[in-house]
């Protein structure tokens, strides 16, 4: 073995990102992209900016709210991106 490396990724329980308000006023999160976030950054930045500017999530990201872990409406993407999540 010539080289090895390791890193840490943030993965939500359903392996989908979290783009959401939080219970803390003025705190928003856009995280949980795991290993699949790089290609999504322009798009997620665009809709996240909308959320920050208006306080309302555009329809595209409403399912990715933090609230889905309470309502049970998970978005199971464990098989996505062909990587081990």
């Amino acid at each position, binding site marked *: 073995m010539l080289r090895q490396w390791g890193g840490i990724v943030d993965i939500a*329980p359903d392996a989908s990102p979290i783009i959401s308000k939080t*219970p*803390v006023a003025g705190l928003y999160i856009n995280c949980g992209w795991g290993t699949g976030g790089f290609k999504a950054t322009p798009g997620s930045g665009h809709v996240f900016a909308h959320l920050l500017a208006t306080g309302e*999530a555009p*329809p595209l990201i*409403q399912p990715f*709210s*933090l*609230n889905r*872990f*309470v*309502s*049970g409406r998970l978005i199971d993407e464990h098989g996505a991106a062909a990587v081990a999540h």
Partner: protein
Amino acid sequence: MILISCPWCGMRDITEFRHGGEAGVRRPSGAVTEGAWGNYLYFRDNPKGVRAERWFHRHGCRQWLFVARHTVTDEVLAVWRPQEAIPQINVVHVAPTPEAENRPELRIVTDREMS
């Protein structure tokens, strides 16, 4: 190098163990609200200070044990076996930190409110 004193094997490097999450998580019984159930399934404390955790001695005796670890300094303050009482932890020598706040109860947003 972080060391954990396994109750069965003695002092071992942390790489022999797998982290098993927050200790003391209790499944709510009886009728529960969605908020309480979601909290139980998915939300865990993340204090800046001493945290009670489960660890699995994966590359050793393969027993589960409990560890009190300071999340900032990684100092292991106590180790105990399941069924044992939590030992008194002397934190006088550790810089005082605020207690972990209770998680704010999440407000359930209905579909009508989201649209």
